C-alpha cells in the first residue's frame, strides 16, 4: 500500500516538474518583452500625480532612449495648457478639395508608424446632397475634387462631453483645461474601450511598435502628444498640442492648400475661430449624441 502511494507521489512530482518546464518553455517569448520593461516604467505614476522633478527625469530618460534608438537628438517637452486659452477648430466644407494633405501632414508631424500609413485624420468623399456618412467613402483613389462630391475630413472633435473619457476604467485619458483630450501612454492599459466608445473613429491603437526611419523622425515632440508611442496603448489627435500650446498652428492646418481650416482660441473674441462661429452657420457631426464637439463644419455657399 505505502509502496503504491509513494510511487504515485513520485509520478506526481515528475508530472509537476514536466508541466512546469513546459510552461516555462511556452512563456519563453516573454523574455524579449520583459527586457523592454524597466522597474521605473512599471511603477510610473499617473501623469497628474507626477511631480516636476519626476517629469524632468522621465523626459531625460525618454530623450536618451530616442538618442539610442534613432541616433538623433529629440526634444520632448511637457507644455502645460495656457491660462485663458480654450481651443476650437472649424473646417470649411465648401473649399476642401479632398487632397488629403492634412492627413499626410498629420502622419509626418505625429510620428506615425510608416508601414500602416496611419493618420489621425480620415477624409470621407461624400455624395453631394447628403450628410449621411453611409454614402461616404474614405478609400477613394482618383483625381480630386470629383464631380458631384464634396469632402469631409474627420479627426478627434475634442468633445466636451467625451464618451472616450467616460468609459476609460483607469482615467488614462482626460480633458485638459484648454479643451484637448489627451492620453497618458504610460498609464493606458490598452483595453480599447475608448476606441469602441468614440463615435468619430478618432482613436488608434498601437497594434505593434511604431517604426519610423531615423531621418524621418519629427524631433519636436510633446510628452502627451507626438512622442513615439509604445506598443499596446491608445493614441489620438491632440490638436498638435506641442505646437499649439507654444502659439503655433496645427500641422494639418498649415498643410491645407485651400485654407479650409480655421483654428484658434475660443475665449479670444478677435480670433479667427470666433469670427467663423459668429458669422457662419456652423454644425457639428452627430450632434444628437450629445458629445458637444469642439470641431465645427460649415459651408460657404
Amino acid at each position, binding site marked *: 500500500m505505502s509502496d503504491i502511494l509513494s510511487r*504515485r507521489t513520485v509520478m*506526481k512530482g515528475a508530472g509537476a516538474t514536466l*508541466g512546469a518546464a*513546459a*510552461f516555462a*518553455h*511556452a*512563456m*519563453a*517569448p*516573454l523574455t*524579449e*518583452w520583459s527586457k523592454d*520593461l524597466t522597474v521605473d516604467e*512599471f511603477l510610473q505614476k*499617473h501623469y497628474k500625480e507626477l511631480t516636476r522633478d519626476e517629469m524632468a527625469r522621465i523626459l531625460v530618460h525618454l530623450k536618451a532612449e530616442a538618442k539610442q534608438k534613432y541616433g538623433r537628438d529629440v526634444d520632448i517637452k511637457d507644455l502645460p495648457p495656457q491660462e485663458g486659452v480654450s481651443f476650437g477648430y472649424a473646417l470649411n466644407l465648401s473649399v476642401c478639395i479632398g487632397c488629403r494633405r492634412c492627413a499626410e501632414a498629420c502622419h509626418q508631424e505625429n510620428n506615425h508608424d510608416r508601414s500602416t500609413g496611419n493618420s489621425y485624420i*480620415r477624409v*470621407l468623399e461624400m455624395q453631394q446632397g447628403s450628410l*449621411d*456618412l*453611409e454614402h*461616404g467613402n*474614405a478609400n477613394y483613389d482618383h483625381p480630386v475634387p470629383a464631380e458631384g462630391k464634396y469632402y469631409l475630413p*474627420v479627426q478627434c472633435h475634442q468633445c466636451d462631453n467625451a*464618451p472616450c473619457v*467616460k*468609459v*476609460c*476604467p*483607469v*482615467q*488614462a485619458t482626460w480633458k485638459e483645461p484648454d479643451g484637448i483630450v489627451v492620453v497618458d501612454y504610460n*498609464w*493606458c*492599459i*490598452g*483595453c*480599447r*474601450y475608448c*476606441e*469602441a*466608445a*468614440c*463615435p*468619430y*473613429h478618432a*482613436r*488608434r*491603437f*498601437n*497594434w*505593434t*511598435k511604431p517604426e519610423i526611419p531615423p531621418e524621418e523622425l519629427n524631433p519636436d515632440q510633446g510628452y502627451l502628444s507626438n512622442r513615439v508611442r509604445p*506598443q*499596446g*496603448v*491608445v493614441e489620438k489627435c491632440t490638436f498638435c498640442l506641442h505646437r499649439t500650446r507654444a502659439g503655433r498652428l496645427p500641422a494639418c492646418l498649415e498643410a491645407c492648400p485651400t485654407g479650409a481650416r480655421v483654428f484658434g482660441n475660443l475665449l479670444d473674441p478677435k480670433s479667427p475661430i470666433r469670427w467663423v462661429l459668429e458669422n457662419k452657420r456652423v454644425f457639428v457631426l*452627430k450632434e444628437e*449624441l450629445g*458629445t458637444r464637439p469642439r470641431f465645427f463644419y460649415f459651408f460657404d455657399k
Partner: protein
Amino acid sequence: MTATRHLLDYPRFLGRLLWMSTDGSWRFYTWMTVLTAIALVGANAWAHQLAEGMALTGMSDHVSWGLYIANFTFGVGLAAGAVMMVIPAYLYHDHEMHDVTLIGELLAIAAIAICLLFIVVDMGHPERAWHLLPGIGRFNWPVSMLTWDVVVLNGYLLINLHICGYLLYMRFLGRKPRKQWYLPFVFLSIFWAISIHSVTAFLYSGLGGRPFWNSALLAPRFIASAFITGPAFVIVLLQVIRRFTGLPIGEGPLRTLTSVMRVTVLLNLFMLGSELFTAFYTGGSHATAVRYLFFGSHGHHALVPWIWTAVALNITAAVLVHLPATRRHVGLLNLACALAFAGVWIEKGMGLIIPGFVPSTLHEVVEYVPTLTEWKITAGIWAFGLMVLTVAVKVALPVLSGQLAASHAAARH
C-alpha cells in the same frame, strides 16, 4: 472549535482537497493532460502576442474587439446561467435540486476564471492591471461601466468561492452548515448573477456611437441567453458526473433545468425577432449593422454564415426541447443542449460584438476574421477553464458523497 483553529484548519482542508484532486483514473489523467497541452499552446500564443503586439490578431482600429471579448461576453452568461440551479433550489425549495446546486456554483467559478482571462489577453498592457486597483491605481468608478464589471465579476467570484468553500468544509467536518453563514450569500449570488450579465450588457448598450448595441433590449437578451447556456451546460455536466463518479443524481434536476430551457430558448428567439423587426421596418442607418450581419453589405459577408448557423442551431434546439420524444430520450436532450450552447456562443459572441464595429462609426466596412493566434489563445483559455471545473468538481464530490470527512482523515493518521 474556535475561530483560530478554523483559520489553520481551513487552509489545511483546501490543501488536502488539492492534493486529492491529483489522484485519479487513467481517464482523468488523459483528460487533464490533453487540456494542459491545449492550455500551453494558448499560453505560448499569448506570450507571442504580448511580445510582438496585438497585430498578431485579426483586430484593427475599425474592429477593435474580437474573439476575446466575444468569448468574455459568452462566459459571463455561462457564469450567470449557472445560478439557474440555485433559484429553484432556494427560492422554490426544490429538494432534489438542493444537492446539486453546488455543482452550478463550481461552474460559475470556472466560468468567471475564463472571463477574467479573456479580459487579460485582450489588454495591450496586462502588467498595468494594477492601475485598476482602487487606492493605488486610478479606478474610474462609478463613471466607467468597465469598472462596474470588474467589481461585479470579482464579487461574484468571491461569493461563490465562499459558498462552495463553506458548504464543503462543513460537510468535511461532518457538521450541519449554519444558515446565517451561507444563506444570505446564496440569495446575494442570485441577485449578483443577474447583475454581472446586466452590467456586461451595459458595457455595450451604453455606447451611443454604436447603434447596433445601443438598445435597451440588450440586457434582457443577455439574461435570457444566459439562462439557456447555463442549464444546457449543467444538464450535460450532471450526466457526465453521474456516469463517471456514481454520485446519485436523480432525474429531478434534469427535468427542472429542461423546463427552464423550454422557456428561455423561446424568449431568446422572441427578443431576437423584436430586434430584427425594429431594425428592418425602420430601416436607415440603424439597420446597416443588422443587414451586414444577416445578409452582408457592400460585398462583405464574413458574418453571414456565422449568424445563420446560430439561428439554425437555436431554432433546432428550441424545437428539440419541446418534442415529447426528448422527454424519453436523453440523447435528444443532450443534442438540444449542445446545439443551444453552440447557437448562443455564436449569437452572443461573434454575432454580437463584431456587428457593433461593422460598419464603423464613419460607416466604413472593414471586416474581421480571427487569426490562428486568437483561436489558439481562445482554445487555451477554455481548456484551462475546463481544468478548473474538473478539479473543482473532483474535489467537491468526495466531500459531497461523504468519502472525505474529518473523521476518516483523522483515522488515517
